[in-house]
């Protein structure tokens, strides 16, 4: 605050309270204080001054990597009461230096989205609606179908040459998954004899 303004206000006895409220007027603090562009302290109110970011309240901060494009920006995941409360860029990364793009910045919603499906959904052949299905039962049904289709389409030979494979089962996807996951996929599929394994990374 400009000294002149302050001294004039002091001259009115009984108006101390008022002046202090005027002193709270952000425009005056902007003009008189250091924050000329009002992007920091000059823009704060009594209430906002006492607020703290939810990152401060986190029980723990976990290091992660953004799941969108392949730049591989480092993320910090803030967890409170076993829920993700915020995801921010990690300044330590030599690649991203703390930055995230709009997608990376929105990635908390990827985790906490209200439309995220968290229960198994099942559509029977010719069905017109989704049905509930127990996860354990679903896994068992899938295993049975793999065994059945694998056998049905099993091929020891093609044109007299050994092929040892099934052309009945295919798989698509992998570029959004972890290396360890891709590894188990390729290992299991190859042992099954399934060869039509593909993902987004054709080139």
């Amino acid at each position, binding site marked *: 605050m400009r000294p002149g303004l302050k001294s004039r206000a002091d001259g009115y006895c009984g108006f101390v309270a008022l002046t202090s409220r005027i002193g709270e007027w952000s425009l005056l603090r902007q003009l008189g204080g250091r924050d000329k562009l009002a992007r920091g302290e000059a823009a704060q109110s009594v209430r906002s001054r006492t607020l703290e970011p939810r990152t401060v309240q986190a029980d723990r901060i976990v*290091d992660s*990597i*953004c*799941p969108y*494009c*392949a*730049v*591989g920006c480092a993320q910090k*995941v803030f967890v409170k009461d076993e829920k*993700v409360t915020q995801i921010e860029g990690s300044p330590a*990364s*030599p*690649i991203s*230096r703390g930055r995230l793009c*709009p*997608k990376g910045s*929105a990635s908390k*919603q*990827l985790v906490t*989205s209200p*439309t*995220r*499906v*968290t*229960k*198994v959904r099942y559509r029977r*052949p*010719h069905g017109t609606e989704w049905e509930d*299905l127990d996860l354990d039962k679903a896994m*068992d049904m*899938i295993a*049975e179908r793999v065994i059945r289709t694998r056998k049905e*389409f099993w091929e020891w030979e093609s044109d007299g*040459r050994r*092929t*040892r494979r099934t*052309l*009945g089962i295919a*798989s698509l*996807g*992998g*570029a*959004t998954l*972890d*290396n360890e996951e891709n*590894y*188990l*996929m*390729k290992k*299991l599929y190859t042992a*099954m004899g399934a*060869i*039509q*394994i*593909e*993902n*987004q*990374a*054709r*080139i």
Partner: protein
Amino acid sequence: MPGLGTSFGRGGATTNLMDLQNSDCILIQGSNMAEAHPVGFQWVVEAQRRGATVIHVDPRFTRTSALADLHVPIRAGSDIAFLGALINHVLTNDLDFREYVVAYTNAAALVDEDFRDTEELDGVFSGYDPEQGSYDPTSWQYAGATEAAAAGQRDPGQPGTPDSAGRHRSARSETSGSGGPAVEAKPERDETLQHPRCVFQVLKRHYARYTPEMVQQVCGIAPEQFARVADALTANSGPERTSAICYAVGWTHHSVGVQKIRAASILQALLGNIGRPGGGIMALRGHASIQGSTDIPTLFNILPGYIPMPLAHEHESLDDFVAEDAGKTGYWGNMRAYAVSLLKSWWGDVATEENDYCFDYLPRLTGNHGTYETVKAQIEGGCKGYFVVGENPAVGSANGKMQRLGLANLDWLVVRDMQMIETATFWKNGPELETGELVTDEIGTEIFFLPAASHVEKAGSFTQTQRMLQWRDKAVQPPGDCKSELDFYYDLGERIRAKLAGSTDEMDRPLLDLTWDYPKDDEGDVDGESVLREINGTGPDGTALSSYTELKDDGSTACGCWIYCGVYADEVNQARRRKPHWEQDEVAAEWGWVWPANRRILYNRASAAPDGTPWSERKKYVWWDADGGEEGTGRWVGSDVPDFIPDRPPDHVPAEDAQGPDAIGGKDPFIMQTDGKAWLYVPVGLADGPMPTHYEPLESPVPNPLYPEQQSNPAIENIESPVNPINPSFSEVYPFVFTSYRLTEHHTAGGMSRTLPYLTELQPEPFCEVSPRLAQERNLEHGGWATIVTARTAIEARVLVTQRIRSLRLGDRWIEQVGLPYHWGGNGITSGDSQNDLVGIALDPNVHIQDKVGTCDIQPGRRPRGRALTAYVAAYRRRAGVHDPEASADDREGDDS
């Protein structure tokens, strides 16, 4: 990535994002880096602050162009004509970095006298079989190499070569992801580069007609603009300066995609920009671990570490399998050790020398088993079970209708995702229900939707765009039934093995003998680090290996992916290293782990001159220190892990009969190549020619001015299906070019972005971008609706009339392009027609990737609904003369357009 793989030996970006700041000139082409890789783009901006010139060559003026020093609009699909002209400019004006070119590239190698160029054969190379639409590459060999082992049979798995049954072989070029294809002998060389058959002269003749005038005619780029690019690149290359090239799917998604990257590789090799700080080729990949899922492939034709899948007609035993590579020069010569270690990793104690290490447990290929062939097989009834895991082909793959018709003809489908994506709901709300092409209760597909864990609900590693593995810790447990893929596949394997236990059927042995026992963490989830350790590999004493050089072919070592060997060195998860960048130098070698061997810039021995000294103080990176080793011996030293044998002196000349790494000379920086050189000319390993050649996309509005007799890639792979009709080129019915792209605020097929409120608010609706000239021609109103039509279907989108899309002048005619973001589908908070439904399938013969560019018509207003839509599209096909096996009575009744 055979474009980079055949050129330099490894199919990965040769450099890293941070090193772009050291560039003096950056050419971004086939990429809108500022919008598709925004955080990576900070390093381009950093370079610019240091004085670098940034050039963006792209059909659209984007945020990348806005920050570039120069934007050059180009007709989509014409990149090779442009790059070829830059190569011609360098060669005819002697602007190449001659010492680098002679020493480090195959410019001096002599080509077989039977080789004939496209200039002599009206647009095809020698060895072309028009009946098969494929090449026999025998005549492309180096001189003297053909006698060595009857080259025609030497590598019979060559792509495009028909086998005895007349079918196309699988894409062996994929295997050059790490290790270039084998050549039989070190070629004869003429280091004066004057011999008419030396690669340098062959290249010069091949590109002689790629002139600035031709660029204007093909690409719509004025000669002055071309000259500015050529001058910037050549002025900023040489001993003191380096230029980098960045690309993304704007190059890869083409029927000549591999050759576009090859053209950039040739240019960078001629300018001496590979293996040096500020140089290189930065491949910008689109998914968090797309590099990882190629290295450890969920791909049909390779095993981990780019070991090829065996072929039924060639590989009956392990010996046959490794014969093509075993004992060859360079590190690929140790192929047997890599293959045996993988088999040991998968089948453990059961894999013994006596049983060929269970080599026979591997299924064999008989051709192209890529995704589009698989979809065709689904439609035809030959493939009945399908797992779709973190991908959304109903929106993200070309020709969406074909995808959905395939899905509708399965016995069972498992979809694993976080949101209810279109691939899981095609039976409920797919576009074919509206048109009557599918009826819900007639679809017999049984569908399991299993919810997936998110990236913070599981621990694991991604391999990002510069080959870096970065580990994520688990923050929280996944909710409800959500599971990681690690848990899902482990559980599935356990159940299948339990159900088959006791089986005596030989077909079940690979499953029952599989090593499938991983520890679990406190929450009962599979411990990802134990899987990473298996990938890394273990030695005879069971401890983690630290380098692939330790791998043996006697069964004493196990390794799940040889190029990742070292990621668990010293029993430490090296991918989890997170030393802040402010505590390290610029290379930041202690953040994450990069394959191979934590090398950050590949081929960095080339950052030094042949004698081992830095090319210049300014571009010093890795060099030979004659006293650098222990006991006063010499050693390669510098800022990075040397991509070379650490103690091999620059003057080392290998023995004539040397094999494997022993055969690498002291001046051979490309250690994965059999001859140690960067390949300007690819004598073996590609399906569509040894040098990039301009061909038009399969659907093009113009004839090919360079080769009037050869319109499109002669080795193009067609997917013949009634639901994949192709627009005829130069058709007045489909007069415009369409091209697709990403927006910053959305991600690929939209499952991870159209479901998020923040992102949908930022980009709420699909749109098409058109020039003011096209808007006027077709009465398109800014903010109104337009219908875009191809032979496949018609979609609608909001119109954005903008000068960001330039009308291009090609000779005496104007070319108009329609830009289409491709993120939308029927589900999510924001929905709309899928752009990929427009795209036809015609594939690059090396990698089976489709053209993202095609031709179309555009009309004002919304598209017809229901059956009227198929009739509308069929009427277009008839007018264009498209062969139309789908035509029905309905279509004819609806023909009123």
